[in-house]
């Protein structure tokens, strides 16, 4: 039942993004995982995908080939002003074709940094909260996809002042294209585990366990989780 509910949630509504981790805390660059699918997102590849994309649809394709989970990542591309562009990756869980805060998984913000130069930075949200890329420099003359290189053209005008957003009707075709891509890359995308977990994931019983560095005389207290896997019956759930 759990599996059915999880899969139904993932396939029908897609994965929930974070409801906003604390923006005041320090952020560090790291790989992030989401335990809902335990799917890693290779940020290096995501950053490179933006750099090389020819346009929003190509970026969608690249991002979804990078992502190893079941959900389709929708993309919003918004030119906020003449030179500033924000790309938002999100799980359109309510399939309404708009970005909502709890659906966001990353943003890529590109802005000018001088004459003939720009920079971009990627930030994770929701299940990918905690990731923030370095500032990547861009300059005319670099090997760039059209999505970025156009900004250095004298004739450049922002195209996405009205944002491009992955249409909900496109999600199934992106999903199908990705299935073909995965089928063509069996070395990377092995068979799904019996647990129904996503590609390349640890077992469903593994729990992330951050153990802080234990220096000096630090003493342990309790873990706020219970080991109950394998029990015959689950407890009654109180609803009132």
């Amino acid at each position: 039942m759990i599996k059915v509910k999880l899969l139904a949630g993932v396939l029908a509504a897609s994965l929930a993004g974070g409801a906003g981790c604390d923006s005041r805390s320090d952020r560090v660059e790291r790989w992030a995982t989401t335990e809902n699918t335990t799917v890693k997102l290779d940020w290096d590849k995501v950053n490179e995908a933006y750099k090389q994309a020819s346009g929003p649809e190509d970026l969608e394709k690249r991002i979804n080939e990078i992502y190893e989970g079941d959900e389709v990542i929708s993309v919003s591309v918004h030119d906020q002003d003449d030179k500033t562009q924000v790309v938002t990756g999100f799980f359109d869980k309510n399939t309404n074709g708009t970005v909502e805060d709890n659906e966001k998984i990353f943003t890529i913000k590109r802005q000018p940094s001088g004459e003939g130069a720009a920079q971009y930075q990627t930030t994770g949200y929701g299940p990918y909260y905690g990731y923030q890329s370095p500032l990547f420099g861009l300059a005319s003359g670099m090997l760039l996809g059209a999505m970025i290189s156009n900004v250095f053209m004298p004739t450049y005008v922002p195209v996405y002042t009205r944002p491009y957003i992955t249409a909900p009707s496109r999600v199934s075709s992106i999903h199908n294209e990705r299935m073909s891509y995965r089928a063509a890359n069996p070395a990377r995308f092995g068979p799904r585990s019996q647990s129904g977990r996503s590609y390349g994931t640890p077992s469903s019983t593994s729990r992330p366990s951050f153990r802080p560095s234990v220096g000096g005389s630090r003493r342990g207290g309790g873990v706020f989780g219970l080991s109950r896997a394998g029990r015959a019956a689950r407890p009654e759930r109180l609803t009132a």
Partner: protein
Amino acid sequence: MAQLTIAELPFASRPLRELLDLDVDRDAPSRDYAGFGWARAAEVWLEAEGQPARRVVEPLVIALHTADDAEPLLDDLELEFELADRSVTVLASAFLARWLPRLPHGQAIVLAVCNPHRAALRRPAAATVPLHYALGDVASWREPGGDESQDRILLSGQAWCTL
């Protein structure tokens, strides 16, 4: 067996050290701890992977548990309460809706509860101050100071989120 409601759970105030299972001296956190309840604290430190510990002043600390076979939910936690005669589960959203209005919030609310599926919790309507919760496992730690009152109490998680 008598029908129990969420509001009737024996969710009580306890001394902070007892609540966080810090009143026993041990090297590493115990995975057998099933205690729950709430406490007001002068401060606690929230420690996340790869980040310096962050001080939270005068929080209401709420200690709860999830089981490793809890239902994976996108935006909620299935809490488990080990009672004297049985265990029951309650969704965190329902639990907080019932209990937060009854508790003294202090300057912040800290949920000490494992979030194995990294659910993105929604802010409870009854919360009047920032609410902190973690992704991944949560464990309590104590760094002894000069005397007990100077001990630093920490909660570690993979990441801490604030609503």
